[in-house]
């Protein structure tokens, strides 16, 4: 079958779930007839109509708050927050309401919803439209977090997200929208909490997520070609549940770890991965652990400046070299 885009796979993943389950409804800004500013909801309005695909005002709190109320009362809403930066405008719902209500009511209510959002940089959108903020979500116990790197995973993880009885934040990477890959098979479901070994290798483990997966793969190819270094690349696919078992398994063979993450180094998800490794995997390590992460600065507009501060293939290659020569 012909390759499909990551972008089209978003709409495809949602459509499959909407066909399966009438409780699935979408809401967000310009997601209806307009098909979304990233064209990730194209076709949904046409297929499912205005009672299943709802355009909203610019009211991020109302969008996610309403999704929560609907999820508590029998629906499975899929809410779009256009850019992940705007999660800050409804952070109370993500941080304080949605992830806590089940626990604080002693299990009386359940919140099966998905908040989808376009995440990450690399497109020159500047400081307020380019952030990788999966680490924000990671600070909050009670949220599941998915961040696919391929078209098939978009569909498969979307299936798991929508079917999950737990709230899911679903990060669609802006920089990957135009990328292509094999289409998802019918009924494709990728379970949460299972990292994918997307490249095998015995010298060093590269742990990646979303946009940094292709980047780590390119770096691995270059390291193989130029240095004869065999890098194993793990795609975490979800941050919660976090498949640290897969990381530790890989380290048993490679003994060297580089985490490649787009969010800033300070407070980035790599810190959580590294701290589990530095505790439970300490004896496996033969070298320091490195994190290739976003720089601790806001994201600049100019492409050349943005390259300075987000992970690049060069930076990954350099980090690995510093370990293999260790």
């Amino acid at each position, binding site marked *: 079958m012909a390759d499909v885009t990551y972008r089209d796979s978003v709409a495809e993943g949602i459509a499959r779930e909407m066909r399966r389950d009438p409780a699935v409804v979408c809401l967000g800004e310009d997601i209806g007839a307009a098909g979304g500013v990233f064209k990730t909801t194209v076709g949904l309005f046409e297929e499912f109509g205005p009672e299943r695909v709802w355009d909203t005002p610019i009211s*991020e709190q109302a969008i996610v708050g309403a999704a929560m109320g609907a999820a508590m009362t029998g629906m499975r809403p899929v809410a779009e927050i256009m850019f992940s930066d705007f999660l800050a405008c409804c952070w109370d719902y993500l941080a304080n309401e949605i992830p806590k209500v089940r626990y604080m009511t002693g299990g009386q209510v359940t919140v099966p919803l998905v908040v989808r959002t376009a995440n990450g940089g690399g497109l020159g959108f500047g400081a307020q439209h380019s952030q990788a903020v999966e680490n924000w979500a990671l600070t909050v116990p009670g949220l599941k977090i998915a961040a696919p790197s391929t078209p098939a995973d978009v569909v498969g993880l979307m299936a798991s997200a929508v079917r999950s009885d737990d709230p899911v934040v679903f990060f669609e990477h802006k920089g990957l929208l135009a990328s292509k890959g094999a289409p998802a098979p019918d009924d494709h479901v990728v379970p949460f909490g299972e990292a994918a070994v997307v490249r095998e290798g015995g010298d060093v483990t590269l742990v990646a997520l979303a946009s940094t997966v292709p980047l780590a793969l390119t770096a691995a190819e270059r390291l193989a070609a130029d240095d004869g270094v065999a890098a194993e690349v793990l795609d975490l696919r979800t941050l919660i549940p976090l498949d640290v078992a897969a990381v530790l398994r890989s380290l048993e063979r490679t003994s060297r770890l580089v985490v490649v993450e787009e969010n800033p180094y300070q407070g980035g998800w790599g810190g959580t991965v590294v701290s589990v490794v530095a505790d439970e995997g300490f004896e496996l390590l033969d070298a320091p652990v490195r994190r290739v992460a976003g720089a601790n600065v806001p994201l600049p507009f100019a492409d050349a400046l943005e390259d300075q501060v987000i992970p690049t293939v060069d930076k990954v290659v350099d980090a690995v070299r510093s370990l293999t020569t260790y």
Partner: protein
Amino acid sequence: MTDATAATGLLALHETMAVIRRTEKAAHDLFMSGLVKGTTHLAAGHEAVAVGARAALRDGDYAFATYRGHHHAIAWGATPEECLAELMQRSTGLNKAKGGSMHLTKAGSGMLGSYAIVGAHLPMAVGAAWSARLRGTDQVAVAFFGDGATNIGAFHEALNLAAVWRLPVLFVCENNFYMEYTPIGSVTAAEHPAAGRAPSYGLPAEVVDGNDVVTVRDAVARAAQRARAGDGPTVLEAHTYRHYGHSRTDPAKYRPDGELERWLERDPLTVSAQRLREAGTSDDDIKAAEDRAAGVVDEAVAAARAAPEADLSEAFTDVWADGGAAWRT
């Protein structure tokens, strides 16, 4: 409805209000004696709003409340024992001692939670109303909130969305004239913090006596009828007063002299007793209802005291729908 059935109905409301009042008194005393921890925001004085609203609504309708939510929980069927056990951190607590006073919830009867971030639950109520519409039921959702909540952004977003989508949701403001220790007028650019804002969303609004359970019930009934008829949301602003301070040990020194006394003359229980007498209910019957209420709460206190402490293993349950808390492999 005959006068007699009306009076019987009203006596039941009076009794529920008495149960709430007595529960709040018990909560206060237990807090003072160290048996209730954390914080409490007592609703004594606000009873008529919760009880009147519940009386006007149907089983299956949804309610969302605030940290000052004991009265809504009880009006929606939570027992004083469940509530007090929660406050006393007992394993028999309404929320298994995981919520506390600010988060009383009785989801089984549609009371979908008490939320402690001001204004946050208004969009949730909008969502529940949207859900009712999507599922084709005629349920309505009601959000109870304070006067202070009308100045936060979520209020604005909720009212606008509900109006645009014409959803069956009721916004019921319990205007007790204070945002914590600050008179609401000094921080609000509208004389009627809730009702005064309704026109800017094209919504109908009423300002009602929140200490008269019958007035509240009738206003909510009108609003619910509009909502079920597909005519969209209504804003109700019920004027009321809290008898205790804002929370915990607040002695409410910021109140002008005589203000509390004036409001106590219009205590919701006094008002309903008066109405009952006018409808022909005897003082003995009223007293009997109040005694039953007192008895229920006294037993609840005893039962909650005797109940086992919170179960430690509960710290690690209920994060996820599978009941567990696993975050990694």
